[in-house]
């Protein structure tokens, strides 16, 4: 396997970073932020090259054959690490919760898949729950609101962890979003198959963000973020949109999602 490593020390946990396809393609800065946060927390981080997509789009579209093939690709690329961590509850939720379902009838592979699932974590919850990180060294002089993604909230039980770390960011004030347990309307292929419904859901979320009084919206899943940033732009809202990892890693000095030069 071709891989690259930032060596810390031999006994620090060795994390395979699952970049996720959306971060890889759309927002590399989130990947770098994830590496920084993991290294700051004492991990040795490797980014396997043989990674692309976790298979969720195929799985959610009923294409179980491709979903399983992609899961096996992830298994091969990440099995060797102590942990698999990625900046998305949606993808890591697929690995943690749905991979075992995909191989439920495969007695030969199931134990390996289950072992992989058990050591796979969404980034922020990994920092807080597994590594015991309490604070980050970052500053962000803005009033933010936080959107809980559905996979974070309901598949992985992530709610307090991002808030805990955000509380340690200097200058940051958090205004909670009304209806934070309601989906933003992304839903993978749903958003292009049913644009009108999806658009209404996104509009309601964008309005709730505005009503919170925050100038910045954060979330931990790029799917939601692209949906919401795209809707903000379409509606002419000034709210800026970042991935939470960018703020926690003190790397939110780049352009926000969907922000132009002019």
């Amino acid at each position, binding site marked *: 396997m071709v891989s*690259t490593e930032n060596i810390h020390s031999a006994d620090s946990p060795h994390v395979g970073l699952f*970049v996720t*396809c959306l971060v*890889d393609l*759309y*927002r*590399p*800065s989130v*990947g*770098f932020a994830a590496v920084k946060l993991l290294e700051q927390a004492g991990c040795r981080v490797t980014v396997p*090259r*043989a*990674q*692309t*997509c976790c*298979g969720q*789009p*195929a*799985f*959610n*579209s*009923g*294409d*179980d054959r*491709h979903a399983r*093939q*992609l899961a096996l*690709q992830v298994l091969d690329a990440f099995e060797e690490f102590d942990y698999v961590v990625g900046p998305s509850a949606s993808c890591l939720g697929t690995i943690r919760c749905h991979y075992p379902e995909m191989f439920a009838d495969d007695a030969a592979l199931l134990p390996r898949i289950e072992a992989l699932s058990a050591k796979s974590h969404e980034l922020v919850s990994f920092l807080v729950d597994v590594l015991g990180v309490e604070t980050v060294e970052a500053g962000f002089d803005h009033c933010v609101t936080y959107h809980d993604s*559905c996979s974070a909230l*309901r*598949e992985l039980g992530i709610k307090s962890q991002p808030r805990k770390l955000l509380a340690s960011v200097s200058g940051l004030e958090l205004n909670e979003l009304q209806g934070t347990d*309601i*989906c933003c*309307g*992304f*839903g*993978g292929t*749903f*958003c*292009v*198959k*049913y*644009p*009108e*419904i*999806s*658009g*209404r*859901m*996104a509009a309601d979320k964008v309005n709730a963000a505005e009503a919170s009084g925050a100038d910045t919206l954060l979330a931990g899943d790029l799917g939601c973020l*692209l949906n919401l*940033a*795209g*809707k903000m*732009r*379409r509606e002419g809202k000034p709210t800026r949109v970042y991935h939470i990892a960018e703020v926690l890693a003190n790397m939110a000095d780049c*352009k926000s999602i*969907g922000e*132009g030069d*002019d």
Partner: protein
Amino acid sequence: MQPNSRHFQANAESALREPNLQSALKQLESGFVAGRQRCYDALPEFEALRDRAKEVLDHTLDNLDAYLLEYEARVLESGGLVHWAGTPEEAREIVIRICRDAEAKNVIRGKSMIGEEIGINDALEASGFEVTETDLGEYILQLGKEPPSHIVAPAIHKTKDEISDLFLEHHRDLGFTKRQTERSALVNEARQVLREKFLAADVGMTGANFLIAETGSNVIVTNEGNGDLSSTLPRVQIVTAAIDKVVPTLEDASLLLRLLGRSATGQEITAYTTFTTGPRRERDADGPGEYHVVLIDNHRSEMLGSELRPMLRCIRCGACMNHCPVYGRVGGHAYGWVYPGPMGSVLTPLMVGLDEAGHLPNACTLNGRCETVCPVKIPLPNLLRSLRSRQHLQRQNSSLARIALSLWSWVALRPRLYQLLTRPAMTLLARLGASSGGFRNMPFASGWTRVRDLPAPQGSTFQARWQQQQRDRK
């Protein structure tokens, strides 16, 4: 009711532009959702009850044949009759035959979803019977000739104004010439009209929330008491119920009742909970002379033998639709048949066919809020996903989406090719979008850009940058 689910897309889009419907749907969160949450917070054993309910129902479904036979035996002992119907047609024929044999003219109905499922009203009317719905919501819909849009609150889409107009139009001839606008006055008017119907009825039809195997009883819950009147006043009672309504014991029914009202409307218990067993006995002051139960399968035994079996645990509380962000935007009629929302998106394809209802399993973001509130822990998102797998295997999903996704998977299974293709593509896209930061239109992504911009990517891919950085470090 003729299914209209294949037009989900168009139905949904017009629903989104319907201001009355939109304001009615806005009440769901502050009403039912908040109500359920209050009940949840007030009952420490709520989660334990959910687990227990799931266990009881799974056990029942594992032994469904035995419990149904036990139930039938108890009904017969109590002097009632049990009729078995495989299909909606058979069920309709049985009901009509009972009404004919009883030389009935007027039939009153307590609200039941199975009645909608088998289309009993139209069939009875076509056979010359006069049918009156006695649940206020259903009565309003009967006047307006509309199907229900919610399984618990069937007329939730109707505004008070529309109801005032309907009542004036239909009750004028009965002497109610004033257009009532107060809630209580409207209820009172309906009560007076319906009272006459109750007294004139020959046959009372109800559904069943539960059938109890150990006693042969059926249980109905209402908030208006119309179910009690429908089952006690007429000389003939007909209970129509699906085979998955049976539970082993009274104890099991009371467990489920504790969950039902709380999950449905945020009530600890509904206003009326009525147990009926058989026809009137000699020493009884009132009750029907004949007691019939029509047990209906309608594809449920197929579900029992498939991966969709958990759906048969459903106790029809409606919590899944109350909490569904799609239902909350488009309302129940968009789904095009009797059962809307998440539970309907599983049931409808099974009952009217996956080709007719192919949209429904897909019109869902799989956000999972329904599953977390379902009192009997039905894994609705997984069941919808199973239906998508069936569609995929039967090649029933749209070919464009199929090809696009297969192509994506094919490339994603070849990481080198993937990186080779994505790096220049993202670089180009980033360059094109750099100055504005996003795109208002994007060929091949019109579904996305119809309602929102497509944010521009940052530039080259993470993998490309990372590998470059690693090389630079060395």
